[in-house]
């Protein structure tokens, strides 16, 4: 194995996008993927490519998210050319749906604050009649909504597939069913990564993108990544003729016609199951939003675990005590996929500059006793 090997731990959308970026930047990359037993948020998420509401109170993150939106089309185009996989990217703009005047006022205050900090995300508040003119399917209980022309959605399963196919096309080494238990910094430099079943890999650099597994692994190389699971349940309807040309925050119609409905926010540890009460509340909200869904059949429901930090924002950091070790974690692995491939990949490979002010994303921020954090989803 070449000395300059970059080892990426974690083959979900975050790790696979970063590894893809490392490979296309010209470095040799090995991706270690835990396999089907992983708590894989990449296989359970909602698929929004979303900007409105991201980065409130954190201007650097707002800018990070804004740039990610523009990286998406190049990424989808490149993956299509390289792998033949169409990830169904659509960026027609998107709607948030509100059910009360209080919700609408809080939304407007948040979006106005966001507009005046960071990159200035454009938005428009719409009352019921204005929203109905754009989304005729909304029901009488909808108070209104917010519109952002930059929002969109994608098929997250096809994205994960395309990234792995792209890695193969770029001759990256991908090992599956690798349960990484140990990451060791060698005194002379470089890293040895060991799996629970005793296999080892060595490389000059190591990138931890192991989702909820990052908490344990980061500590082994002098990094702090206090991530916790947060469950979301989602529903999928039967395939329907197109009726919803835009994604909304809790309902989107996929390219094949199914409607994905979300979502719950639950603190239940590592339980990724489903509950009748959450399914009922998601379905009721969906029917209140779009009454024509009342007769539609649901075909699947599932739970998946978000990878949440104390403030809900990502962590990107290189270790000072173990140079060449990086931790990367984000709850928005789909929205940020282009940035992870085109910016984070070259940086962690040592082939591109560190993104400006990247230190604002350091996990050490959670150790500052003078700061407090909230990750209300």
């Amino acid at each position: 194995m070449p000395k300059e090997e970059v080892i990426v731990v974690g083959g979900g959308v975050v790790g696979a996008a970063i590894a893809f970026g490392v490979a296309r930047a010209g470095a040799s990359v090995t991706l270690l993927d835990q396999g089907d037993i992983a708590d894989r948020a990449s296989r359970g998420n909602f698929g929004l490519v979303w900007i409105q509401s991201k980065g409130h109170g954190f201007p650097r993150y707002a800018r990070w998210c804004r740039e990610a939106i523009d990286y998406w089309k190049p990424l989808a185009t490149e993956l299509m050319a390289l792998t033949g996989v169409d990830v169904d990217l659509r960026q027609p703009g998107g709607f948030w749906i509100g059910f009360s005047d209080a919700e609408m006022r809080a939304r407007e205050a948040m979006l106005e604050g966001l507009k005046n900090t960071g990159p200035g995300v454009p938005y428009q508040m719409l009352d019921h009649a204005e929203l109905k003119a754009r989304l005729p399917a909304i029901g009488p209980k909808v108070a209104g909504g917010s519109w952002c022309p930059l929002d969109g959605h994608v098929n997250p399963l096809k994205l994960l597939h395309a990234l792995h196919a792209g890695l193969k096309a770029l001759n990256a080494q991908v090992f599956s069913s690798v349960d990484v238990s140990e990451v060791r910094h060698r005194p002379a430099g470089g890293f040895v990564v060991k799996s629970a079943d005793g296999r080892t890999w060595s490389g000059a650099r190591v990138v931890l993108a192991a989702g909820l597994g990052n908490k344990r692994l980061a500590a082994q190389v002098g990094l702090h990544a206090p991530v916790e699971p947060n469950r979301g349940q989602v529903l999928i309807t039967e395939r329907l003729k197109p009726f919803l040309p835009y994604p909304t925050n809790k309902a989107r119609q996929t390219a094949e016609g199914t409607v994905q409905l979300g979502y719950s926010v639950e603190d239940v540890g590592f339980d990724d199951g489903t509950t009748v009460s959450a399914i009922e509340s998601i379905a009721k909200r969906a029917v209140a939003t779009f009454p024509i869904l009342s007769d539609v059949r649901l075909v699947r429901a599932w739970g998946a675990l978000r990878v949440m930090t104390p403030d809900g924002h990502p962590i990107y950091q290189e270790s000072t005590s173990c140079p060449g070790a990086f931790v990367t974690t984000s709850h928005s692995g789909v929205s940020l996929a282009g940035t992870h491939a085109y910016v984070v990949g070259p940086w962690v490979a040592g082939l591109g500059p560190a993104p400006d002010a990247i230190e604002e994303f350091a996990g050490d921020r959670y150790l500052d006793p003078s700061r407090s954090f909230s990750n209300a989803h």
Partner: protein
Amino acid sequence: MPTETNGLASPLFSSDDAERSCSVTLQFEGQTLTVPAGATVAAALLLRGAAPFRTTPVTSAPRAPYCMMGVCFECLVEVDGKPGRQACLTTVRDGMVIRRQLGASALASPGEGDTDER
């Protein structure tokens, strides 16, 4: 496979017992069929050679029942105007009107039946 006609082909299955209990009359694509009481729509239509039951939403491929136990969703038909019903989980009833499920389920027009008073 009779994909271009509403007519019925020679059935793949027959049942002497079932023929003796034929007492339910329903409509399939405008044709009147007499079928066994208590049978599922899928079983009844198969006895009468009614394939395909549906075409797929993405490629319009013709499909017919496969699992007969509610799992595969290949037997979808429109029952009394309601799209996307699983024929293998629906019991026949006198006067039932059944049509093939062609492509994705249609929804009522947005706003239809929606009084929209706020």
